């Protein structure tokens, strides 16, 4: 059985090098080469590869964002010039992390590791997905954009274009200038990762962008009603209103 491979890198010569190193092995088949994250996402979904060589810094959608919106993940070997992402990559249970420029031998080692994992690790890749989720939940880095996927349509929403977010069962609905998008994440995740100087959780089920507020009025004894510029009206709990007031 041959192993199906996709190479993702925004530099043509870097892709060529991986392809060249791979040509030594007869049981590997390169299905596609992609120069950016969107192209890669489409290719992975359509071609369902076993193994992906992935650069991290790419235009539009970077390597990590790409993984975040993938419904099911192939084995990943990261190829990058920076060592600063190595820890994150291993937390994502990547097969290996190749620092550019890398030798043929080092590349062979990575391939060896990948080969031992491909095809026999359904349980492991389920674990990998949960690890990925876990990693994203726990790292406290502020995010600059949210990437959502609906079928094959990917939307990248810069956080400052978000009006507000609302909990919907296991999902969060993101209302933004670019429309409404569902994301499989928790409210807690967004509360922790959206820039805390512009986003406030005013209720168990809603987070708002404070620059979008047009009016705040008393609703019942304990609750307030927050009106946003986009026309939405949201209830603020007693606690949520306190948080909001401390910002304004």
């Amino acid at each position, binding site marked *: 059985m041959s192993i199906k491979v996709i190479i993702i890198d*925004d*530099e*043509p*010569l*870097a892709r*060529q*090098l991986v392809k*060249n190193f791979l040509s030594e092995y007869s049981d590997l088949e390169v299905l596609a080469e992609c*120069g*950016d994250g*969107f*192209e890669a996402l489409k290719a992975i979904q359509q071609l369902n590869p076993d193994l992906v060589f992935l650069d991290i*810094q*790419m*235009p*539009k959608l970077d390597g990590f964002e790409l993984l975040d919106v993938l419904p099911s993940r192939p084995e990943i070997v990261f190829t990058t*010039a*920076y060592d600063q992402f190595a820890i994150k990559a291993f937390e994502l249970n990547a097969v290996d992390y190749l*620092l*550019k*420029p*890398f030798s043929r031998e080092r590349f062979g080692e990575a391939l060896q590791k990948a080969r031992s994992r491909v095809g026999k690790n359904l349980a492991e890749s389920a674990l990998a997905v949960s690890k990925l989720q876990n990693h994203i939940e726990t790292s406290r880095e502020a995010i*600059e*954009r949210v990437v959502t996927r609906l079928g094959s349509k990917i939307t*990248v929403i*810069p956080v400052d274009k978000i009006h507000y977010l609302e909990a919907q069962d296991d999902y969060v609905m993101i209302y933004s200038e670019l429309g409404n998008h569902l994301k499989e994440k928790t409210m807690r995740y967004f509360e922790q990762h959206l820039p805390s100087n512009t986003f406030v959780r005013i209720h168990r089920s809603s987070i708002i962008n404070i620059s979008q507020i047009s009016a705040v009025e008393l609703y019942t004894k304990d609750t307030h009603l927050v009106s946003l510029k986009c026309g939405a009206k949201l209830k603020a709990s007693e606690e949520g209103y306190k948080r909001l007031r401390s910002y304004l």
Partner: protein
Amino acid sequence: MLNRFLSKNSWIIILTFWVAVAAIHFALLYQSFGVNLFLALFDSFVFNSIFSVFSVGIWFSLQFTRKVQRNWTERLSYFLAAIAFILLITIGSSILIMRAIGSDDMVYLAFLERSLTMRIIASVLIYLLLLSAFSLYQSINELRERIQREASLTEMLREAELNQLRAQINPHFLFNSLNSVSSLTIIDPSKAQEMVIKLSEFMRYSLSMADESLTTLGNELHHTGLYLDIEKVRFSDRLLIEKQVDGKCNDWPIPAMILQPLLENAVKHGVYSTTGISVVNLEIKCDNDYLLVGISNAYDPDSLPRKGTGTGLKNVSGRMKAIYRRNDLFSVKQTDHTFSVYLRFPLIIPS
């Protein structure tokens, strides 16, 4: 502080002061009060030499109170205690000594009794005079020191700034370029060689240039051209460079490695914000007073600024300020789809 106080000039001033005081003292005793020559001399000498020795204490008391930063009432009581102590010692001991010396002269002994109040008043006045002279001297010293410290701080700050602003080669650029070379060694060895040579020449230029070293526009353009060639190999047809350079400006003096960070910024923003072709524009012209450089790139307003960008711009603007000591030479213009940086280089560079 003490060393400064004891400088040669200070000694001469202090000595002159006390000789003058002693002379007046003697003259008063001899002329106005009819004390005999010998005793008047001794009186003046004993009294003033003891006073002058103890007056050094005034200087230390000033230093002390200044250091511990007491409040005004505490300071005042401290000085009162000091003056009482000094007067007691000075007048007490000098009277005792003069009694022994002038023990045969009843007239003088009577005068010694009578003159006590006058001596106290004179001593207090001299004490106050010394106190104000010392504190004035101390204030001037402190002021001078502060000015010196500030001057050296500003200089240190400027040096630190320039050090920090040292144009550095971005490691990401370096390693990705080496990766491209690695790839070229397989598919096109002669192109790999060409790229290694260009990379080396560019790196040698950037490493050899100290922060304030000057070069000509022509030389800077040659080396940034090497840099752009390498980037074009990395991104192939995704990167397009458009240059409009007025050849007559080639000898204009500019700081070395000042254009490269801006071009790098433009390349990075352009290439990472679009999956299509990105264009970087370089326009250079000059008149009698200024060399004008404009660097612009198309960018996608929807794509967010990448982390770590902006430091290149800040560095260049900081270097322009530090080198030319003006802050109107660097400007940035942002429209919906283009980002431009403008630099003006005066002909004269302050030394």
